[in-house]
């Protein structure tokens, strides 16, 4: 009964879409039927799966770069007032730069290889992660750090054994925000980089294969959904202990 309701929503949207496309009567807005019919051609030949696979790789690369850069920096800024004061102005100046404007210089400096994705996606996804890590770093409960210190833990131990795990929930929130950003910017970069779903999307649009283009868009939507779900499951495994993930207690 409850399971039916989501389907109901999707069905309603599909009917609305079909009605609008019938009313518009133009090849530039195919209905859901035409788009669904375009799916097998894209999927069976392996075109769409291959493109999405590449896109996944690029997203992972960009997200990895963003994490490698943003998390330590964010943690540092969260834990050290001096680092925060030092780096905040530069960060605030860089943050509003639109990632798409970064593509041409990145293309020049990094070429069309993985470097392009690392640079552009990494830049775009870096800020949500950095900010989340910074907030998480600032919010590490003082008693936790004090306890570690009073139990004889040195600086390094306190950071690796206490601060880092305590930041994980906040960081994972940041990761959840960064994921759709990374995916969208990856697609943008792929339109230039000539790989993956971005290029497929562009090519389909350029060659006027509009139903296939929308099928590709829907494939991207499904990918984003699957990624979010995968992240959620990973999260519930990694930070099972955070208040939002705790299983009901087995003890009084």
């Amino acid at each position, binding site marked *: 009964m409850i399971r039916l309701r989501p389907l109901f929503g999707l069905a309603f949207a599909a009917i609305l879409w079909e009605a609008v496309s019938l009313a518009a009567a133009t*090849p*530039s807005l195919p209905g859901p039927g035409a788009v669904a019919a375009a799916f097998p051609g894209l999927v069976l030949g392996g075109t769409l799966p291959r493109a999405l696979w590449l896109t996944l790789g690029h997203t992972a690369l960009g997200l990895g770069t963003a994490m490698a850069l943003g998390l330590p920096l964010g943690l540092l800024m969260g834990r050290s007032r001096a680092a925060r004061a030092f780096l905040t102005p530069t960060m605030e100046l860089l943050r509003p730069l639109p990632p798409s404007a970064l593509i041409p210089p990145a293309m020049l400096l990094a*070429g069309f290889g993985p470097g392009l994705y690392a640079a552009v996606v990494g830049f775009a996804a870096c800020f949500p992660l950095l900010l989340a890590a910074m907030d998480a770093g600032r919010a590490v409960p003082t008693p936790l750090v004090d306890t570690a210190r009073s139990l004889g833990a040195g600086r390094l131990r306190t950071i690796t054994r206490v601060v880092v795990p305590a930041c994980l929930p906040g960081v994972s929130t940041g990761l959840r925000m960064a994921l759709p950003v990374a995916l969208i910017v990856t697609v943008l970069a792929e339109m230039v980089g000539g790989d993956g779903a971005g*290029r497929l999307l562009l*090519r389909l649009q*350029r060659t*006027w294969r509009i139903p296939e283009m929308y099928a590709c868009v829907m494939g991207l939507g499904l990918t984003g959904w699957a990624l979010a779900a995968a992240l959620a499951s990973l999260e519930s495994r990694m930070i099972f202990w955070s208040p939002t993930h705790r299983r009901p207690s087995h003890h009084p």
Partner: protein
Amino acid sequence: TQPLRIGYIPIADCLQLYVAMEQGFFTAEGLEVQARPMQGGPVLSLAVEAGELDLGWSNMVSLFQAHARGFSFVLVAPGALEDDGEHLTHSLLVPGGSPLQAIGDLAGRTVAVNALGNVNDLSLTVLLAAAGQDPQSVRMVEVPFPDMEAALASGSVDAALVAEPFLSSAVSHGARCLVAAPHAVFGREFMIAGWFATSGWTAANPGQAAAFCRAVDKASAYITGHSQDIPGVLARHTRLTPDMAAHIALPAFSAGLDQAAMQRTIDLTATHGFIPRAFPTRDILAPGFEWPQR
């Protein structure tokens, strides 16, 4: 009455429009014109399809593809012509020190074109096939014309199909022509682009369509006769500086249409899988038009 809304891309290839406006050829035909600069072909074509624009400018291969995919676009007036002589505006370049010597060496390399699936993409595909290479073995990436020289210089791409005005600049900075006239695969003289509308619009406005065509033809004739005025026109309508405008190579413009050459291009488009199957040239010409043979 509403003015005629014409979409164009502010580059040298749309020269006919600038001249026709400046010389009053549209007014003389009783047309009131509202020209709208657009960023790129796809958006322009979508706007024509949506009825936002009455007429638009497009490269021919894209037009063929749109037609083949169910868009009812028809050609209303001829546009820029390229030949491998004086009016050579596109070349395939490699960096000065590149080891590449012939088109066949491109297998496995990265090549920049300005847009996927358009006339430049097709010409490279045809060239590669002719050289016995699988076109799929070359990685075509979409790089805007202005960034191509930098992409070549930085080694981001191994070759680039560059157009004017960037062509002259790149060559003067040391780039070398791998294929001087890639468009020659379509014939010695080749119509790169043209002016189009939806068949619905031409059927409803046959008089305006014909008048537009006449004005464009007059402009073509004017361009051929007044080459000294052209740099000034370009500087006023594009973002080219007068100096640059004076030095670039320009395509040719003329009235009429070589229907046999166009059919050959359509067939090539189909042969290389850019459209599912070929169609007769007549299908893409606005009905009721007398197209003089070139």
